[in-house]
């Protein structure tokens, strides 16, 4: 008898699950948990990124910032909670109070309108700069090659690298590579861009050129989640700032407010070290 009651209980709870968020919400995370084996990396993340918002995420090393970003486009599978992007539950289909895992191809389709930029650039070294940018539009979206090239050249022009179209990644400086990586992500016309410490691997004099491209992007209204140590960028461009520590969001709010008047002791301690 008790087993049946438990089953009913579970199903009603599943039925009460929050439904997909409204149109103006790009990312909605509800109580997101993620463990690697016994290591609990994310311990209940709740946050909302509105369409057109630039959210900066800061926090000490190991606090789970990268992991959370990778959960957003389902490079990591979450163990608990719910994560919606652009109104769709990432990695699952919810039906009749139950969750069904999506197939690889369906997950791949969900990722198409989420761009991601990595700390290590991860350009494809065996393809030219232009090849890197047209690859996904041509192979994934099946855009005609000529049209894809035209768009790619426009994007390369936008990041200031039209003259490098025929070069190979290893011939470029770090800053140039990262700008190509941004162009490559934009070529899929994403509605959301994720940046994981995009300038951390760069020499100080190259940081500015990448941040400038990101500022342009923000100005054009792109929704962005940026994990960064660049507090100046967060203050100037960010609409919101999230401070993570130990796998939870400790504090969030307007960047100026969080940076100048942190409410929590942990935020204060972290900021005193990095500012």
């Amino acid at each position, binding site marked *: 008898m008790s087993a049946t009651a438990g089953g009913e209980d579970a199903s009603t709870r599943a039925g009460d699950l929050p439904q997909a968020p409204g149109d103006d919400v790009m990312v909605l995370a509800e109580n997101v948990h993620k463990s690697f084996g016994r290591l609990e990396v994310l311990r209940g993340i709740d946050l909302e990124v509105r369409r057109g918002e630039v959210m900066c995420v800061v926090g000490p090393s190991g606090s789970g910032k990268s992991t959370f970003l990778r959960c957003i486009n389902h490079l990591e599978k979450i163990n608990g909670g719910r994560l919606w992007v652009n109104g769709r539950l990432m990695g699952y289909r919810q039906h009749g109070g139950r969750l069904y895992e999506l197939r690889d191809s369906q997950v791949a389709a969900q990722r198409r309108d989420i761009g991601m930029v990595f700390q290590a650039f991860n350009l494809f070294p065996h393809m030219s700069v232009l090849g890197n940018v047209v*690859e996904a539009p041509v192979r994934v979206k099946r855009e005609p090659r000529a049209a894809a090239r035209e768009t790619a050249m426009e994007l390369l022009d936008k990041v200031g690298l039209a003259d490098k179209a025929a070069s190979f990644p290893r011939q470029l400086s770090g800053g140039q590579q990262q700008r190509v990586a941004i162009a490559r992500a934009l070529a899929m016309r994403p509605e959301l861009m994720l940046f994981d410490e995009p300038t951390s691997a760069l020499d100080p004099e190259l940081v500015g050129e990448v941040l400038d491209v990101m500022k342009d992007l923000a100005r054009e209204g792109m929704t962005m989640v940026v994990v960064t140590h660049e507090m100046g960028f967060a203050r100037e461009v960010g609409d919101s700032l999230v401070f993570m520590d130990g796998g939870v969001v400790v504090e969030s709010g307007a960047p100026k407010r969080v940076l100048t008047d942190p409410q929590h002791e942990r935020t204060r301690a972290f900021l005193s070290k990095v500012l």
Partner: protein
Amino acid sequence: MSTPTPTEGRAAPEPIKAVPVRHPGRWIAAAVLLVLAAMFVNMLVTNDKFNWPFLLENMFSPPVLYGVWTTLKLTVLAMAVGISLGIAVAVMRLSGNPILAGLAWVYTWFFRAVPRLVLCVLFGNMGILYQNLELGLPFDNYWMPALGLDGDARFYSVPMNEVLTPFMAALLALALSQGAYMAEIVRAGLLSVDKGQTEAAQALGMGRGLILRRITLPQALRVIVPPTGNEVTAMLKDTSLVSAIPLTTELFFQLQAIGNRTFDLFPMLVAACLWYLAITSLLMVGQFFLERSFTRGDRSAQAEVTIMQSKAGH
């Protein structure tokens, strides 16, 4: 006290003229080896057991040339099937699916453990297992009677000896064995590609097959191609094993047959050496150019960077 003046305006010093160190040991060793080489050449020319006219006459006779053709065909086909198998098995090994990975492991384990000569003879005798090769539903001899049905559930049947010709047996033995070695080479190649490459491709919405075909496999080739070149040479030589099946059209079998028929075996064995030497040398030239073309992208890239730097310097 005079401080050294800057190099500018100073005359270049006279080139050093010194007595070089002598190496008498090298000269003695070279002399000994030269004498041995001369003795060897003398033997080749004067010892009539080599029977050079007979050797040259038969080395290019039609059955031997057909043997060369069979050997080349077998090498190319066995390598082609072996490489395809190797890629498939390596992908299975890395798939993360325990059943596929386990199967792949067992396959590699078996075909790397059993010698090729044994495989050749084994596949040559495979015909005794079944009279006919049949296509149909599995285990029909159990479940058809159990359901009270007569007959069988087989739709297609060919005699085994029509399918498993000596050439097929040879190809199967060599290709399956090669597949196991290629699987290890391809796996090492795929593992050499940075994980960030797969993640970047996934983030762009690319699926598994596309990522393998367009991103990881092309980059793995730099690690896969050099050992594969060596495998081709090894395969060419191992085709001589199929004379044990026996595959009678193959090069080594043909040369041996002529030798046995004429009671003059030794020249034919030398002819076999010469043929394998010639083809292997050609393959090595091909390998050299293939490997060079694979590193060309890097070298021209390097050259361009150097040019850019020297321009920036001016």
